[in-house]
Every structure is written in C-alpha cells, then in structure tokens.
C-alpha cells in the first residue's frame, strides 16, 4: 500500500527552523513505521536522520512522535497509522537534526536518582537471597528501556523541563522498592525536590506512551506515598 509520510525535518547546517517534508512510500501492512522511514532514507533522501538499532522495541533508540503520540517507530505497524503518517522528534528536548534530539538532559536526570544498587552488606561469598514477593515488588519498573517516550509525553515536563520526569522516577522506583537496596532515603530525598515527583499531575500520558507497558503513574504514585508514609517494611 502507498502511504504519505509527513516528516518533521531540520538540518542545523541549512535550516533556520524545522519544516515538514512529504514523501510517498510503498509498504506492506505488516511493515513498521521504521521500515517506512528507512525507505525514505535509503531511497529518497539520505540526509533524513534518525536513531534506530534493534528494531524490535528493546533498545529504545527510535522513540518519536508518530501521528501526534509518542511511540517507538519499530513498534507501530503501518496498517495502524492511516493514510498519512506524521512523524516528529520527541518534544521538549534540544533538537539536533530531523528526528534526532539531544538525550543528554534526559540521561542527566536518570543519573540524578542514583540508578544503581547501593548495599555494602554483601555476603562474603555466594548467593544473596531474595523472596519471590520481594522480587515481584519492583518487577514492572525493571522493564524500562530509557527511551524517553514517557518523559517527553508529560505536560508537566513540557511546561518545565527541570521536572525530573517519569522515566527517572521509574528508575528510582526500581531501586527504592528493591529490598536489597539500602539507599531508598537518598533517592526519596532527590525525588522530594521542588522539581521531583510533586510535579506529577497524574495526567497518564506516560502510561499511554510507554512502549514497555509499564504502569508509570502507579510507580510515581507509590513513590509519593513512600515519601508521605516513610517506606513500607
């Protein structure tokens, strides 16, 4: 089938502001938006620039706005986009070129929540145990692939890019609720910032945007309650 791709283009070396490029591509119904973008890049305009790697929704490279909504280009099928497929870069991130945005501010927020297990009491040798219930407690938030789809779909983040954002909170949640970790208080202090969890307005765009189907708002809610109550034991 023949589909029109409307792609938001910007070349920092030539353009003063972004513009819409229109391209016609022949695709199969089961093709992904990524395949259509590749068709444009490979056969029509090699200057079209995007990030992609694994092409099946695990690496998190190709998050973008597809028909007005954040998604991974490799997880949206052409049969689901209609006659016109409109593609834009993620919002509120510094634009580098075409669909490529600067991910540095995003990863800086990720690093701000101390995204690593902190525990100095390791067994001298061998295995440390964890119950199945304790493991299940934070399972959902271990799925995060840091694609930034959630954070850049959040109106609070659009309004104020200092908001630490859902992705960083999800990453913090993964450790706060891991009973092997000893530094929940440190992370909660970070998230208690003026630009921390309290900027979340339970808008749920993040849940809709997450390609890994993480219940992001729930994770944020649990962090809020943890801050109010102190941690559950």
């Amino acid at each position, binding site marked *: 089938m023949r589909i029109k791709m409307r792609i938001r283009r910007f070349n920092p070396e030539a353009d003063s502001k972004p513009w819409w490029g229109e391209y016609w591509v022949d695709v199969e119904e089961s093709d992904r938006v990524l395949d259509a973008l590749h068709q444009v890049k490979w056969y029509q305009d090699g200057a079209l620039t995007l990030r992609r790697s694994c092409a099946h929704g695990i690496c998190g490279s190709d998050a973008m706005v597809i028909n007005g909504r954040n998604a991974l280009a490799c997880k949206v099928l052409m049969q689901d986009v209609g006659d016109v497929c409109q593609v834009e870069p993620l919002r509120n991130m*510094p634009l580098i070129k075409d669909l490529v945005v*600067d991910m*540095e*501010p995003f*990863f*800086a*927020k990720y*690093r*701000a*929540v101390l995204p690593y297990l902190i525990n100095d009491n390791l067994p001298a040798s061998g295995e440390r145990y964890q119950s199945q219930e304790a493991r299940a407690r934070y399972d959902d938030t271990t799925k995060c692939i840091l694609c930034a789809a959630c954070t850049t779909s959040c109106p*609070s983040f659009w*309004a*104020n*890019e*200092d908001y*630490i954002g859902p992705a960083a909170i999800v990453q913090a949640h993964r450790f706060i609720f891991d009973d092997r970790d000893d530094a929940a208080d440190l992370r909660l*202090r*970070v*998230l*208690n*910032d*003026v*630009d*921390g969890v*309290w900027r979340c307005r339970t808008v749920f765009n993040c849940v809709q945007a997450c390609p890994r189907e993480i219940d992001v708002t729930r994770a944020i809610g649990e962090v*809020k309650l943890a*801050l*109010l109550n102190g941690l559950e034991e």
Partner: protein
Amino acid sequence: MAVTSSSRPVQGKLRYGAPNHEHKIWLFMRLSGLVMFVTVVFHLLYMHMFVRVENITFDNIAERWSGPAGVFWRLFDASLLFIGMAHGMNGVRFSINDYVHNRFLNFLLTAAVYGIGLLLILLGSLAIILGAGGVGRLFESVMG
C-alpha cells in the same frame, strides 16, 4: 561530579534534592480538596438550587448570620474563605511555576497573587466578623 557522556555540555538542572515543603503542600491540596468536596459543593448547590440566587437578599444574609445558628454559618463561610483561598492561590502558584520560568517575573506574579489574595481574605474576614451592614457601620464610625 556526574558522568558526562559526550562532548556536549548538559543544559538544565542537574542537582535535585534541596529541602522544600512541596510534599506538605501536596498533602494540603488533597485534604483541603476532600473537605471542600463536601463544603463547597454543598454551598454551591444549597445557594443555587435550594435558596436560589434570586432570593438571596440583604435581610436573608443578616438573618442567616445572626443568632446561635449564625455562629455556625459564619464559621462555615469562614472555612470556605480560608480553605478555598489557600487551595486556589496554591493552584495558581503551581500554574505560575509551570509556565513562568523567569525568576523575577515568577516572583512578581506569585507575590501579586498572594498579595491580592491576602487582602481579599482580610476583607472577607471583616465582612464575616462584622456581619451584614457591619462594614458600612464601621465606615461610618471611622468617618465619624
């Protein structure tokens, strides 16, 4: 020093965790919301549906605010005034913080909202304490 990942300098806020009162404010917004869900909705429906706005006269109010029941109604109205204004002004502050990033402008606007708000709370309190016509009588006595 955080790990940097490229030669690009990272823009924007990097350090989080400065002490603040946001979580108390967050809790207040919910609790006040819960209280007002009862009081404001009651006030609104009572005044608009049961009493009807057309039928609220100066004398009605004077009557409602007088006697032992008047104490209750004055307290009730005072709670609407205080809780409503606190909740509302804070809501406006949220919005200002979201959209106005210039520190000076942000401060100016917030100060204006709170300044006018406090003045209004003062005026509203006077009206409730002095009762219907009470403000007029106060003017008269001050003016001599």
